[in-house]
């Protein structure tokens, strides 16, 4: 038997500036990485230039800023795009970044026909969990459809859409929900393409064959193997029965993977390495359900941004699996296993039933509220199980005794610090670029883009023209915002309750907390009212949603407005709503910019008596700075006991009220 080819090995990376990221990519390729995975910063993902007010503090934080073709050229300088396999995690602005990539290739003298790679381009999971959406569902699906019909004809080796179940699991989805909602997203996308009428039957089958998936792999790796086998079988059946694709090759379930970050812990972070290894096994052991590409998180992700060495350790896991072990040498080792088959069937049946439920509701867009509520409910259940000890997390709720760690002593020396000067450099380069370009060409290109958006013509040719003309990410997005409008996704927390089904110690603790919250209303004169806010562009709303749900179930009145709020909006809400406490959640690393802005705003409104607590991935040095600036408490992933956090928040509110 011929040895199987290894999957494409990548590391999700990018930070500070295009130049800094380019150096990192070239280093990663020298270390044996076989593909690139570009992380863009939040302004780029949400369609703002680096000098936009909403971008303040976010530039270069969770990825690389790309404002124009100059940045894109710098990002891939010295990297021949004709021989590179590039994955770009980009969604609302995917058509634009793909246009910049194609234009950059053209400038390198590379024919777009040979380009290989992937644009994530899956807006539905952005509404449900990741948060970097811009436009309403209908025009968003149209943009996705445009990229598919364009690449099938002009960039045939490109994967235009990577339908993501990854972020659904990060948001708490069970394996069944992960498969079901991803399939529903794929259906919404393919239905849109089919209805567009741009492709012949043959071309449409090709387009189906170009759809790939981006999945998650958790620590229950046997179940994950079964999940992926079920996923592949369902995709094969769906593409055959719903879309009439006859060529089995075009029905093949092709997926890339990033293993689970949700389960990585801040406590005893070295335990994350075995977790990552086992999760990687889940997507490589079964030949029939093996991933095409893999990226692994780093052991210290729950502490902050990983350094190049941390990412290297994760790349080495992949290389050891592929080159030292014998997993690539066998046919599928699970074929014929009754146990695996039964579990696979069970997942398959349940997933398909959930697909049918969503289709009955009118499809994934009509069912957004329903799906979001199901995800928040699943995550709430997960948090409850960890809190009650039913779900063991080693080093967190069991076996917490530890010898002193030589790897991590609690300071911030083990994470990457983004150079604060990077934002200034980036903005300076943006201004120079704008000054040097031919303004007349920009105006004409943007007018053509608007025409295409309005008329329904494919957005890609106009976008590629914009890329060459020197249009910026903010200008491209703003033009489409004006035509398509903007969207606000459901928060999903309305129908979810912790109390439902909660028994034992958690229920008792919650009841005690409720009694206390009721008593405090007498001291305050009215029920305890809190504002849970998500400032900045970060869309990871798990934490904020959980805190909001638990606060409500503890008897508080909770104002929650969803993601992407400016400091000024948060201050305005706190003022108008008369809240007793403000809780902020930030996971993008921009806490040192956003939190002080909110504190200053509160002071300006005469509201500095309202205490502020902050939760997020916040290194201890930063936490100290925040407390010094006036923040009452800082909570990080190691604070996993919800009742304790809530009780602490009540302490803070009570102490503040006593000072009035």
């Amino acid at each position, binding site marked *: 038997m011929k040895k199987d080819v290894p999957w494409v090995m990548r590391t999700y990376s990018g930070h500070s500036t295009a130049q800094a990221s380019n150096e990192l990519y070239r280093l990663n390729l020298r270390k044996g990485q076989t593909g690139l995975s570009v992380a863009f910063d939040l302004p780029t993902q949400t369609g703002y230039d680096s000098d936009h007010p909403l971008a303040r503090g976010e530039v270069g934080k969770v990825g690389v800023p790309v404002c124009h073709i100059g940045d894109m050229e710098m990002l891939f300088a010295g990297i021949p795009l004709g021989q590179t396999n590039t994955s770009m995690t980009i969604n609302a602005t995917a058509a634009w970044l793909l246009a910049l990539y194609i234009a950059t290739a053209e400038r390198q003298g590379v024919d777009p026909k040979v380009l290989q790679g992937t644009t994530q381009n899956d807006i539905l999971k952005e509404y449900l969990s990741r948060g970097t959406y811009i436009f309403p569902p209908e025009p968003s699906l149209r943009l996705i459809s445009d990229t598919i019909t364009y690449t099938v004809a002009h960039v045939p080796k490109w994967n235009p859409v990577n339908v993501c179940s990854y972020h659904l699991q990060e948001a708490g989805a069970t394996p069944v929900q992960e498969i079901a909602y991803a399939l529903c997203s794929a259906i919404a996308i393919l239905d849109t393409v089919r209805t567009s009428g741009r492709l012949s039957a043959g071309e449409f089958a090709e387009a189906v064959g170009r759809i790939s998936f981006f999945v998650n792999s958790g620590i229950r790796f046997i179940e994950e193997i079964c999940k992926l086998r079920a996923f592949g079988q369902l995709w094969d059946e769906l593409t055959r029965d719903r879309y009439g694709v006859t060529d089995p090759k075009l029905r093949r379930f092709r997926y890339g993977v990033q293993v689970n970050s949700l389960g990585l812990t801040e406590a005893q972070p070295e335990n994350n390495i075995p977790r990552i290894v086992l999760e990687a096994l889940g997507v490589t052991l079964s030949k029939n359900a093996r991933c095409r590409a893999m990226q692994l998180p780093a052991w210290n992700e729950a502490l902050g941004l990983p350094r190049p060495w941390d990412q290297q350790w994760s790349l080495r896991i992949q290389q050891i699996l592929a080159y030292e072990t014998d997993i690539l040498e066998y046919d599928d080792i699970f074929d014929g296993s009754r146990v695996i088959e039964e579990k696979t069937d069970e997942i398959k049946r349940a997933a398909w039933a959930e697909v049918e439920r969503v289709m009955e509701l009118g499809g994934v867009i009509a069912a957004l509220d329903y799906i979001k509520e199901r995800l928040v409910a699943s995550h709430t259940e997960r948090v409850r199980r960890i809190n009650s000890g039913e779900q063991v997390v080693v080093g967190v709720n069991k076996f917490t005794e530890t010898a002193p760690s030589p790897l991590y002593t609690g300071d911030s020396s083990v994470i990457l610090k983004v150079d604060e000067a990077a934002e200034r450099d980036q903005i300076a380069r943006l201004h120079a670029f704008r000054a040097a370009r031919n303004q007349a060409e920009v105006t004409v290109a943007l007018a053509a883009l608007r025409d295409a958006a309005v008329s329904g013509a494919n957005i890609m040719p106009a976008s590629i023209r914009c890329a060459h003309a020197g249009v910026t990410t903010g200008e491209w997005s703003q033009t489409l915002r004006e035509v398509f409008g903007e969207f606000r996704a459901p928060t999903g927390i309305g129908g979810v309750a912790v109390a439902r089904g909660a028994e034992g110690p958690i229920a008792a603790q919650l009841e005690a907390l409720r009694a206390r919250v009721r008593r405090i209303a007498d001291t305050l004169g009215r*029920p305890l009212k809190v504002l849970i806010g998500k400032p900045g562009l970060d869309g990871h709303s798990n934490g904020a949603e959980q805190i909001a*749900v638990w606060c409500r179930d503890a008897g508080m009145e*909770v104002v929650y407005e969803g993601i992407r709020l400016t400091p000024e*909006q948060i201050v305005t809400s706190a003022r108008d*709503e*008369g809240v007793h406490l403000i809780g902020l959640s930030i996971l993008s690393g921009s806490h040192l910019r956003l939190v002080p802005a909110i504190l200053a705003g509160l002071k300006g409104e005469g509201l500095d008596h309202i205490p502020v607590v902050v939760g997020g991935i916040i290194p201890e040095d930063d936490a100290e700075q925040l407390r010094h600036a006036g923040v009452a408490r800082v909570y990080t992933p190691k604070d996993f006991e919800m009742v304790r956090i809530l009780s602490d928040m009540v302490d803070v509110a009570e102490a503040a009220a006593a000072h009035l």
Partner: protein
Amino acid sequence: MTARRYPLEISSLLRFERQAIAAAVNLLEDRRPEYQEQARTLLDNLAPLPALAHVVGITGPPGVGKSSLISRLIALALQTGKRLGVVAVDPSSKVSGGALLGDRGRMHVPPRAPIFVRSFAARDRLGGLSREAFSAVFLLRHLCDVVLVETVGVGQSETDIAHVADTVVLVVQPFSGDLLQFIKAGVMEVPDILVVNKADDAALARKAVAEVTAALSLERQSWARPVLAVSATTNLHIDALDAAIAAHYHDLRTANVLDARRAKQMTEWAVSEVRYELGRVGLAALGGSAGVQALWTHQPGAWGALRRLAAVLSRVEYRVAGEM
């Protein structure tokens, strides 16, 4: 704890200083006796001032898009430079007593525009208006040009909104089966304007409008109640809704029914507060509904007097308890 005086001046409120408005609403919500007294004084000081705002109630079942609709109406009103107040009510959990106040997140509220948005938990009033929300609307009526009040309609609580609103808008969505529920509950008598939201599909919208119109024909009213098909998502026919709301207000004023409606609302509110503070016996002692109406129309400082009466009564109760 001594009563800390809220930094409250009527002039700040009338200048639409939102810090002051927020403080006034906090005060009206405060159940501690010493603050209740300040709150009643505030109401007495406001009483002689004109209440110029058009109060528009927006009600309907959960998920029909009331907040998104309000967001569109906010944008229109702000364009014309109006001062806006918004009171949004969400249900409270029966189990925990807590509430998620999420309507604000679906409204676009520019921080620097003249708009004040306050969310309330319905507390013990199902989807309707709590005491606190009631008094907030009565406060904002003196300070704004338009006050929008959003309540969750669950079949009965729609009637709450008629106690504060000049114009009641009932929002439904196509083929939700809610209408039958409303007709049964007698709710269809309440709204002045009916809106079918999410009416992007013209054919479906026409059918839904016909269904609502048929339901309306079962009732009789002087004002020919319009039924409008709109879409908050795509901004379809929102201007028509805005015009219908304005037309109803105009009609109320030219037909000279606005003052009577408001006088009735005022009496209802005062009666319910008297009952809250003094109970059934206290209400009877004041001459029942007619007596309360006379007092609140002709006697300045009625709110303060009520509070003082309640304070006296609470001491009496204490003494009685001591004798037993």
